[in-house]
C-alpha cells in the first residue's frame, strides 16, 4: 500500500537512482509520513472531544476527588474536612449501608439471571425458525424502553396491591400482597424489571452464536455428543468472550440504575430504604440535601467499586475466557 501511494504521489516514471533522486525520494517519504500523521489536522478534528475530555471528564473527576474532602454545599465556599466524609460514610451512616446492601443484592441477583435468560432465549432463537425477526423484536423492545419513566410507572402499578401481578397469582389461588410497599419484596420488583430487559445481551449473544463454526458441531454430533454436552463443551467455551463482554457491561449498568428506583419509591428509596439503590442515595445527598462534598465522596466510592469489579472481571477472565488467537 505504501509503495503504491508513493508511486501515485511521485507521478513520474521511475528513473535510475542517483543521489539527488535518493534525496528527492527521502523528502517524499517524509512528506508522506507527515501527511499520514496529518500535522495539526487530527487535533483540529479532535478539538471538541479534547474540550469534553478535559473539561467534562478529567477536571470533574479531580474536582470531585477534591470536593470529597470538603463540606461543599454549593452555596458557600468549600471547606476542607479531611477524611470526615469517608469516615462518616463507613462508620456513621446506616443509610449508606442500606444502599450498599440494596445495590449489591440488586447486582448479584439481577445480572446472572438476566444473562442466563438472555443466553437461553438466544440459543432458542439461533435456528431457522419462522418469525424469528418478530421474536427478536418482541424480546428486545422492553430493553429499548428500559430507562423510561413511563415503564417504571407501569411497573409500579403492575406490582401494586391490586395490580396485574396479583391478578395473575390469583389464577393459581395464591393471595398476593402489595409488593411495592413491602420492604421484603420491593427490591425484587426492581430486579424483575431488570431481568425483563434481557434483550440487549440477548441480541449480542445471538450475534455471537451465529459466528460459531458449524463444523465443530458436526464433528461433535458424529462423535455422538449429546446437546447438553455440546453446550458445555463447545458452545459455552467458544462463547466466553461474548459472555465476558456482557458480564462487564451488565454489572456496570446495574450499578448505575437510577430511574426505576426513583419512580417506584417516589424518590424516597423506601420502604425502609429497601430500594435505596446507590445512585439514588447519591442523588438525594447531592441534590436534595445539598451535601455535595459528601455526595462527591459517595461518587468516588462508586467509581472505585465499579473500577474494582471491572478489574477483577478482567483478571478473572484470564482463567475462563478463551480467545481463538
Amino acid at each position, binding site marked *: 500500500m505504501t509503495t503504491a501511494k508513493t508511486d501515485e504521489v511521485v507521478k513520474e516514471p521511475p528513473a535510475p537512482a542517483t543521489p539527488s533522486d535518493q534525496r528527492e525520494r527521502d523528502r517524499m517519504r517524509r512528506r508522506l509520513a507527515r501527511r499520514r500523521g496529518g500535522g495539526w*489536522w487530527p487535533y483540529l478534528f*479532535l478539538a471538541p*472531544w479534547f474540550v469534553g475530555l478535559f473539561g467534562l471528564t478529567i477536571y470533574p473527576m479531580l474536582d*470531585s476527588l477534591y470536593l470529597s474532602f470538603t463540606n461543599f454545599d454549593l452555596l458557600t465556599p468549600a471547606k476542607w474536612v479531611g477524611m470526615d466524609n469517608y469516615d462518616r460514610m463507613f462508620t456513621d451512616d446506616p443509610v449508606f449501608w442500606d444502599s450498599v446492601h440494596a445495590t449489591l443484592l440488586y447486582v448479584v441477583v439481577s445480572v446472572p439471571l438476566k444473562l442466563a435468560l438472555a443466553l437461553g432465549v438466544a440459543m432458542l432463537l439461533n435456528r431457522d*425458525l419462522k418469525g424469528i425477526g418478530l421474536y427478536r423484536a418482541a424480546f428486545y423492545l422492553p430493553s429499548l424502553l428500559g*430507562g423510561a419513566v413511563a415503564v417504571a410507572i407501569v411497573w409500579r402499578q403492575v406490582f401494586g396491591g391490586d395490580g396485574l401481578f396479583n391478578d395473575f397469582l390469583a389464577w393459581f389461588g395464591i393471595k398476593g400482597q402489595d409488593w411495592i410497599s413491602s420492604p421484603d419484596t420491593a427490591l425484587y420488583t426492581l430486579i424483575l424489571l431488570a431481568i425483563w430487559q434481557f434483550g440487549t445481551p440477548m441480541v449480542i449473544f*445471538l450475534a455471537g452464536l451465529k459466528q460459531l463454526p458449524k463444523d465443530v458441531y458436526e464433528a461433535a454430533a458424529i462423535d455422538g455428543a449429546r446437546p447438553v454436552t455440546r453446550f458445555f463443551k463447545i458452545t459455552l467455551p467458544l462463547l466466553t468472550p461474548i459472555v465476558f463482554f456482557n458480564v462487564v457491561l451488565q454489572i456496570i449498568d446495574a450499578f448505575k440504575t437510577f430511574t426505576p428506583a426513583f419512580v417506584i419509591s417516589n424518590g424516597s428509596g423506601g420502604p425502609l430504604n429497601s430500594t435505596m439503590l446507590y445512585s439514588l442515595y447519591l442523588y438525594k445527598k447531592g441534590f436534595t440535601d445539598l451535601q455535595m462534598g459528601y455526595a*462527591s465522596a459517595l461518587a468516588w466510592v462508586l467509581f472505585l467499586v465499579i*473500577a474494582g469489579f471491572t478489574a477483577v472481571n478482567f483478571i478473572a477472565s484470564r482463567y475462563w475466557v478463551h480467545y481463538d488467537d
Partner: protein
Amino acid sequence: MSAITPSTSPLQKLRSATGTRRIFIHTVLIGVAVVMLYPLLWMLSSSLKPDTEIFTHPGLIPNALRPDNYSEGWSGSGNSFSLYITNSLIVTIGAVIGNVISCSLAAYAFARFEFRGRKIWFGLMLGTLMLPTQAVLIPQYTIFYNLTWINTYLPLIVPKFLAVDAFFIFLMVQFIRSIPRELDQAAMMDGANPFQIYWKIILPLMKPALVTTTIFTFIWTYDDFLHQLVYLQQNDKFTVPLGLTLFLDQTSGSSYGAMFAMSTLALLPTLICFLVFQKRLVEGLATSGMKG
C-alpha cells in the same frame, strides 16, 4: 419419524429439528413473548379504561372505552403535555446534532491519522466508556451552576457537542475503518484537504453509522431522566419524563386512566423509532457487541 431409519446420519439429525420439537420451541418463545409484551399491552388497555375498571377488570379488552383519559391527561397536571413534548424535542434534537457532528469528527481523526499519542488518546476514550456518569455528576453540576446554565437546556445539549458519548465515537471508528482508504487517497490526489475528505467522502459513506447514532442518541436522551431531573427545575422547562413524574405526585390514586394515557404517549416516540428502525437498532447493537 425419521429417528428409526438407520440411514439418518447424526449430522442430519443435528440439522433437522423434528416437527414436535419445532412446535415446542415456538410454544416456549410465544410464551416468553406474551410475558414480555403483556405489561405494555396492559398499559395501553388501561389507558382506555375508566378509572373504576382498571384494577377491578384486569382483562385486556375494556368493557367501556374512555378516550377522555387522553384529553384529560394532555391538559392535566399543571402545564399542557404539548409543552413537555416540545421541550423534549428541543433537548433531543440538540443532542442528536451535537453527537453526530462531534463524534464523527473525533472518529475520523482516530480512524484515519497516525498522529503522535493516538493510541493513548484512543485508550482514554475507551476508558471513558466505563466511567459512570454519577462519578462526574456533581462537579459537572457546579460547572454549569457557575455558568448559570441551571434550568436551561444547555447542560443537556452542549456536552453532546463535545463528544462525551464515547460509545458513538467507538462505533464510528469501527465503521470508518471499513471504508477503503483508497477513496481518501484518490481525493487527496485531486487536492482535497482532510476536512474536504471528511465532508465529501467519509460522511456520506458512513450514513448507516450516523443513522444508528441518531436513533440511539434520540432514544437515550429522550429517556435520560437523571440529568433532566438534576438540571431542569421549573415546570415550564420540564421534559416528558419530568412531566410524567409530576403526574405521579399529583394524581395519587385519583386518575389512573389519565396517567396511563400519558405514559403510553410518552413511550410513543421510542416505539415509533423501534418499529421503523427495528432491524438497524438490533444490528447496530449486535455488531458493536462483537468487537468486545
